[in-house]
C-alpha cells in the first residue's frame, strides 16, 4: 500500500542484519531524537587500512529509524572511513529509496548523525553533520 513502507524497510526493521553491539570496538557513539524517543547506538571495528571491518547498531524507535540504521551499516562495511565521512542525507534517501517529509527525515537521518559523530570523534551529534 504505502511506498514509504516498501518491503525493504519493513524487512530491515523486522529482520535487521546488523543489530547488536561490537565488543571490543574502535568507534562508539549514540544519540536520540527526544521528540519521538528514537535511539541509535553504533559500534564499529576498523581494520589496519582505515576501513570499516565490521559494524553494528542497536536502538529503538520507528521502522524508518531502525531500518535506515541497518541499511547504513550494511552500506559501510569494508568502506574506507574517509568515505564514510563524506556520506550525506541523499545517500540515506537513496538507500531507503523514498522521499520523506521533514518529520520523518529526522527519523531516517538519526543513524547517519550518530555514525558521523562517531567517525569524526565528536562529543555530540550535530545536524550540521548530515547537511
Amino acid at each position, binding site marked *: *500500500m*504505502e511506498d*514509504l*513502507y516498501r518491503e525493504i524497510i*519493513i524487512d530491515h526493521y*523486522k529482520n535487521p542484519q546488523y543489530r547488536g553491539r561490537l565488543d571490543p570496538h574502535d568507534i562508539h557513539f549514540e544519540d536520540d531524537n*527526544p*521528540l*519521538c*524517543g*528514537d535511539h541509535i547506538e553504533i559500534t564499529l571495528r576498523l581494520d589496519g587500512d582505515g576501513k570499516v571491518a565490521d559494524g553494528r547498531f542497536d536502538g529503538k*524507535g*520507528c*521502522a*524508518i529509524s531502525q531500518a535506515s540504521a541497518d541499511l547504513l551499516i550494511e552500506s559501510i562495511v569494508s568502506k574506507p572511513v574517509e568515505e564514510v565521512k563524506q556520506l550525506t542525507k541523499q545517500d540515506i534517501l537513496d538507500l531507503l529509496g523514498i522521499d520523506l517529509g521533514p*518529520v*520523518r527525515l529526522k*527519523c531516517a537521518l538519526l543513524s547517519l548523525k550518530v555514525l558521523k559523530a562517531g567517525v569524526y570523534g565528536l562529543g555530540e551529534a550535530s545536524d550540521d553533520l548530515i547537511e
Partner: protein
Amino acid sequence: MPLDIPRLRQDFPILNREVRPGVPLAYLDSTATAQKPLAVINAMDEFYRRFNANIHRGVHTLAEESTAMYEAARAKVARFINAPSAEQIIFTRNTTEAINLVAYTWARVNLKKGDLVVLTEMEHHSNLVPWHMLSAERGVNLEFVPVMDDGLLDLDIYRALLARTPKLVAFTAMSNVLGTINPVAEIIRLAHEAGAATLVDGAQSVPHLPVDVQALDVDFLAFSAHKMLGPTGIGALYGKRPLLEAMPPFLGGGDMIKTVHLRNFVPNDVPHKFEAGTPAIAEAVGFGAAVDYLETIGMDAVASHEQEIIAYALERLEEIPGVKVFGPPADKKGGVAAFTLDGIHPHDVAQILDGSGIAVRAGHHCAQPLHEKFGIPATTRASFYLYSLREEVDKLVKGIYEVKKIFG
C-alpha cells in the same frame, strides 16, 4: 436534538477533499487545529474585499467599519464565554501568548521569590514553559498536581498543595492527550478558598464544552480561535476586571498607549493596554464568525455529539488487540483518544493511516512530561469535533488493523 452531521459537514469544504486521488480525507486531528466552516472563510474573505483598513485611529469610513467589526468580534467572544463585558477580552495570538501575557504582567508584579505556583502533570508545554521561565528568573516555586493512572487529577494531593498557600493555580480544563475533563469549578473554588488566583488553559475546553466564566468564577481564561473553527493567529485572554486594571502592559508600541512623550508614556485602558501594534483584524472577524457558528449549533449539542463519538471510538479501539488508550472512560473525557499499539511506533502508525487518508497526530502532543509519566515516548492521537462521523472511527479501526498486518 442530535446534530445532522452529514448536512453540517457541507459547511466545511475541506472535508470533501481527497488526500490523494481516490482517497477521501478522514480528519481526526481537530485537537491540533479544527477545520473552518464557510461562514469563517467567507467572513475573512469579505473583510479583505470590502472593509480592510487599520483600526482605532483612522477617521475614514473603512477605518471606522473595520474598527467596528474588530470590536464586534470582541463582544461576540465575550458573550460566548459569558464574560461580564467585552473589555475583559484581550486578543492575543493564541492560548500560548495569553498565558505568557499573564506570566509576564500579572505574575511578575504579584509573585516573588519563594512564592508557589501550582500546575498539573497534564499541562501542555504552553502552560509549563512560561512558568519554568518565571521560576528561573524570579525563584518562584512550582508544584504539580499528579495525574493518576486513570488519567484523573489527584485532588487529595491538590488539597495538600493548597495548604502551602500558593499564589496561583494554573491548569488545563481539558487534557489535549488524555481528554480528561477536569473539575474546573471545584479546582477554582478550592484555590480561591486558599487565597490563590486561577488561570485556566481553555484551549481544549472552550471549543468543545459550554464555558461560563462567571459561573466558574475563574480569574484568567486563555483560549485559541483556531481550535474552535476560527483562523490561526488569534486567541484570547479573559480576565477579571480588577486584575486586568491593575496589571502593567505587556508589549509596548502603538495602540496600547494613551499618550507618548520622548521619555515616557501613559498606558491605554483595558483591553487596549495589552494589544500593542496592529492586531490580527481579519482574524478577529473570522473568530467572531466562528463563535456565531458554534452558537447557532449550540455548545450543548457539540458536547453531546462528541461524547457519543468518543464513547463509540473507545469501544471500537479497545477491542483491537495491542491497542492501549490513555485517559479516563468516555464519560469523563472529551473527544480525544491517544493510544499506543504494541511494538509499533506512533510515527509508523500515523504514516500508514495517512496512506488511507486518515489524519491523526503522532508524537508527544506538546505534553512531554505527561508521556514521561506514563513511560512512553509518544502516542498516536485521534481527536474528534462536531463534524466527526462514526464512519471515520470505523475507518480508523480498519486502518489500525492494516498497520498491524503490515508489521505483523
